């Protein structure tokens, strides 16, 4: 039996101008934080489309974290206006769909290394409590999903 504690995989999209700076600062300040995040540097949090978030979950990420500049501080003036709209929408959609609490957005400026560390720590703990992303497991057990033909007579194409 696998007795290792569950280590979540978290994809972290971080804005080049703020959150990535905070992560850098956390590094040079030698602040420890969980190693569960897989950082991806993006030029602006607004470049993260719902495609990327969904792709991460499709590929088995247990959580997706997005870090951007505070409102008003965006390097591209209004980029994070779009980010919050998208994330608010995606949170509602994923909650309804059955992936609750696995997406998180936080504004972290490049000076807030301590905030970055705290947020990553708390988010990792939250995902650890939620458990692994259920999608890959559900897709690996087609029989649990398929009971045969549906009421319209369409048959399952179980591999």
């Amino acid at each position: 039996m696998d007795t290792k504690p569950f280590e979540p995989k978290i994809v972290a999209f971080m804005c080049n101008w703020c959150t990535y700076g905070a992560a850098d600062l956390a590094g040079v300040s030698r602040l420890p934080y969980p190693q569960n995040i897989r950082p991806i540097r993006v030029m602006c949090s607004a470049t993260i489309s719902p495609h990327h978030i969904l792709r991460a979950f499709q590929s088995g990420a247990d959580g997706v974290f997005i870090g951007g500049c505070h409102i008003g501080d965006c390097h591209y003036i209004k980029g994070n206006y779009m980010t919050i709209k998208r994330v608010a929408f995606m949170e509602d959609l994923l909650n309804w769909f059955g992936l609750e609490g696995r997406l998180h957005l936080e504004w972290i400026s490049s000076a807030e290394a301590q905030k970055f560390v705290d947020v990553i720590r708390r988010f990792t703990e939250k995902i650890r409590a939620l458990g692994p992303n259920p999608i890959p497991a559900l897709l690996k057990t087609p029989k649990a999903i398929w009971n045969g033909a549906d009421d319209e007579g369409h048959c399952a194409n179980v591999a």
Partner: protein
Amino acid sequence: MKDIVRTWLESGRIDLFLGYRLVDGHPIPHCFSKERLEEVEQLTESLARYPLEKIAHQMLQKDPAVRIGLMARDCTQRSVRVLAAWNQIDMDRIRVLTMSCCPSDAKDKAFCSYLQEPETGPVRKSNGMPSTGDPDDCRVLPAEERLRRWLYEFQKCIKCYGCRDICPVCFCKDCGLEHEDLMDKGVVPPEVPLFHLIRAVHMAGRCVDCGLCEEACPVGIPLRLLYRKVNGIVTDRFGYRVGQTKDQSPFNVLGEFSPLELSSLDD
């Protein structure tokens, strides 16, 4: 109705009229023109639905000067407004002729044959999502069960792209669902839930709730319910109702800051 169409065509207010004609007992879309006015006699109103506005959109792409009349249900009118909001058609080139039609969340009251009885057989009941009703009804199920049921529905997909092709407001020239970097090629079913959720995201703030996608789906995925939910989120979050304004949806354009709050990690 026939008289109106004839008058419009004769007076030159429109060059072409898109409506339905009975062919061998089947109402099929037909383009009526001034040159063949006698065909107007065969114009018919029926329950059949085709995205006439999509045909009009394609005709306008070829010849922007043509003036087109449309036999329009409520959903047709909504999608004409959406297409105009996204600069896909010129409202001056379109004339709509209203016909009676169907109930939908996107308007207050109507009468139609669509959506009468929920079509849920035993397998659908135990494995799938209901195709009618409120999208939030499924909240009674635990999260994992909702996920499992949606994956069941999506795994039926044969990737025919029927939902996209019939959709009156799908007008992009390059489709993300066919992009090699975004979607695996040559695999059936497509990657679920990615494939359907991406389409759902694109429908947010754009879907006119006509239900053609669900009618077109050969395997009966409750797509209308999914798109209703995403549209509902846009309405709740941004106060935008599709097809009722000339503006583009605030979810899809940068625009001004919406006073949304970050969700807390403690929830």
